[in-house]
């Protein structure tokens, strides 16, 4: 609920500067924010219950309901529309769940079926209304893509009440919804009335869809429901936080949407809200820590660079070891021919190693520093200890162990290395007869 007040505050600030006191635009903004928050909240459950497509079908199925109610009553009352839309929306949902139970048609096909049939029927009714009810229908085609600017104060009372109801119920049943969504069977053994609670969740989704219809429209409504939740999922691994973030994303979209349509003429609120949500979703998919694509890619790249640097140090060490000269000077060509990296990549790696004082530039070449030697020794030690471990404890032939060790040397942590050494009782030679460097050894060598 803190979020609500914080959005209120934002709303006030913006309102003071840009929106005249008491104007209907203010109410539109208020409605858009509430709508965004409530669809974010219940959308989180829709997403986790894998009901995104079902929600879309229900939104489209609302159209004939709205038309029928109008044809029956001849008045444009948001409450009546809500009732009509809910009836056909729910009917659509029921058909979707019944078809796969009684026929061989799978549920994704059933969803597609319901969505297109109901929507087409709605469009037909819309045309009929246009022909027979004259200019009055102007309000109805707004339900296709939404027209928040047409909202009057009474509409907003309805929307506001429904949104608060929706958020309130979700908070009240949070624990039960969560358990039921995660593990239905277990929830039933605890005595939760699964069917009733599921119906309740579906009703809440229907409600969210229905209150969004006037502002966002049947076509785009599913985006308002799913995008904030999907964006939020990228940032956290906890349901509670996910819901809060989704509410925030939705609310923010409401602010931006209504604000844009207020200061720019002919810019519709609903579609702008959807654009904002999708932008935030795309941003989250790329930049969210842990799950985001770019942080993932960076981690991968950093690791690869580290492995390459470690390999360079290791190769220096091995050459020095072979020549029994710890002061060998390496040229750029030595590295490029050995590793087949490009000149540029090699220079970058070497530059970094010099900066970290693992190597020094020397007569146009490079030489290991004492720190570099230490580091190289650590890596070699891991490599050769692991080879010993594989041959001695796992009975793997000594000519098979090198490849495994190549990978593990970059991954073993110090604690594991220590355990490894204890278990193997500090061996001094690897299976190929090379010596395993240890602390005493290196001190001895550096002094000579």
């Amino acid at each position, binding site marked *: 609920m803190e979020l609500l007040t914080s959005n209120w505050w934002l709303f006030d600030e913006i309102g003071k500067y840009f929106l005249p006191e008491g104007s209907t635009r203010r109410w539109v903004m208020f409605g858009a924010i509430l709508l965004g928050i409530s669809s974010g909240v219940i959308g989180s459950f829709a997403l986790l219950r894998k009901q995104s497509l079902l929600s879309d079908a229900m939104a489209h199925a609302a159209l004939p309901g709205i038309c029928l109610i109008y044809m029956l009553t001849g008045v444009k009352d948001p409450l009546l529309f809500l009732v009509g839309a809910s009836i056909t929306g729910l009917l659509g949902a029921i058909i979707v769940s019944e078809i796969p139970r009684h026929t061989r048609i799978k549920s994704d096909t059933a969803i597609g079926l319901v969505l297109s049939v109901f929507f087409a029927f709605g469009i037909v009714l819309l045309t009929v209304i246009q022909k027979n009810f004259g200019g009055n229908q102007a309000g109805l085609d707004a339900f296709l893509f939404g027209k928040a600017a047409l909202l009057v104060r009474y509409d907003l009372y309805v929307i506001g009440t429904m949104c608060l109801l929706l958020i309130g119920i979700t908070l009240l049943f949070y*624990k039960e919804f969560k358990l039921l969504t995660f593990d239905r069977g277990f929830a039933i*053994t605890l005595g939760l009335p699964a069917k009733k609670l599921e119906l309740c969740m579906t009703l809440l989704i229907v409600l969210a869809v229905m209150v969004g219809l006037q502002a966002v429209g049947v076509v785009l409504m599913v985006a308002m429901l799913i995008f904030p939740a999907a964006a939020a999922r990228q940032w956290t691994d906890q349901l509670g936080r996910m819901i809060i973030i989704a509410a925030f994303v939705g609310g923010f979209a409401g602010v931006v949407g209504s604000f844009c349509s207020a200061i720019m003429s002919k810019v519709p609120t609903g579609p702008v809200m959807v654009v904002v949500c999708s932008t935030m979703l795309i941003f989250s998919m790329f930049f969210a820590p842990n799950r985001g694509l770019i942080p993932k890619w960076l981690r991968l790249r950093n690791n690869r660079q580290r492995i390459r640097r470690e390999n360079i140090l290791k190769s220096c060490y091995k050459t020095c070891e072979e020549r029994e000269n710890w002061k060998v000077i390496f040229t750029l060509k030595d590295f490029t021919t050995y590793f087949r990296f490009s000149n540029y990549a090699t220079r970058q790696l070497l530059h970094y190693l010099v900066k970290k004082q693992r190597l020094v530039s020397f007569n146009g070449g490079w030489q290991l520093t004492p720190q570099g030697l230490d580091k190289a020794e650590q890596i070699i030690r891991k490599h050769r200890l692991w080879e010993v471990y594989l041959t001695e404890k796992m009975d793997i032939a000594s000519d098979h162990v090198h490849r495994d060790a190549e990978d593990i040397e970059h991954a073993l942590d110090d604690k594991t290395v220590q355990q490894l050494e204890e278990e193997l009782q500090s061996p001094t030679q690897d299976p190929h007869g090379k010596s395993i460097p240890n602390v005493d050894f290196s001190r001895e060598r550096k002094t000579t």
Partner: protein
Amino acid sequence: MGRESKKVDEETVADVHDLTVSYHIHPVLWDVDFQVPRGKLMAIVGPNGAGKSTLIKAMLGIIPSTTGWVKIFNEPYQKVRHRIGYVPQRGSVDWDFPTTAIDVVTMGRYGKIGWFRRPGKKDREISYTYLEKVGMQDFAQRQISQLSGGQQQRVFLARALAQEADIYFMDEPFAGVDVVTEKAIVNLLFELREQSKTVIVVHHDLQTVNEYFDWILLLNMRKIAIGNVDDTFNEENLRKTYGGKLAILSKAANAMTKGRVDGIID
């Protein structure tokens, strides 16, 4: 209960009477009848698709049964839910759900917490103790999808323990668990038995039945045999359970499905 109500002795904790279960219209369990005495560690053994999970689910009211009834502690299960613990098959949930290990264990407390209230500090503490008991305390704050299969299994076990029940139903708690963990879990089960709680376990490894369990139910679409392991777990019963596919029964099931589709049987 109408006909020949069997004399149920006091120590019977679970009483299943003439239970038949169908998915849609396809019967998978036929007229299953058995009793489980108190303080037993009972294995349910049978081939894949024998209906072991189905039996447990039907006993706990997760799926409806066509005929028959189940009594636990001499009551319908609805009345004694707070005394029942349950470990579902691991594959039955989506592990990518945004929640942590400790959170999942705390779900075992929900039945005790009741409607509308949030788990309190005490519930968290209790949950943590059980997480410790299965050796998972270091993973308390881990997102559950980042746990290995065996670790997920242990979290589920901890959740059931957190229910602090008198009878436990566990569906393959050893699936995907290494030998050391399996021994640790078995010791936990022994501990439960010592507190004269009853544990019913779906088990796949016939090698270890003798070592772990003292009671066994052999099941393949119907009850083959039930009793103490020494007498019941013999070659003949095993052959009845695993040998052949119980050809006639399967055929009958298919015929019945077809009959219902065609409206011959209602």
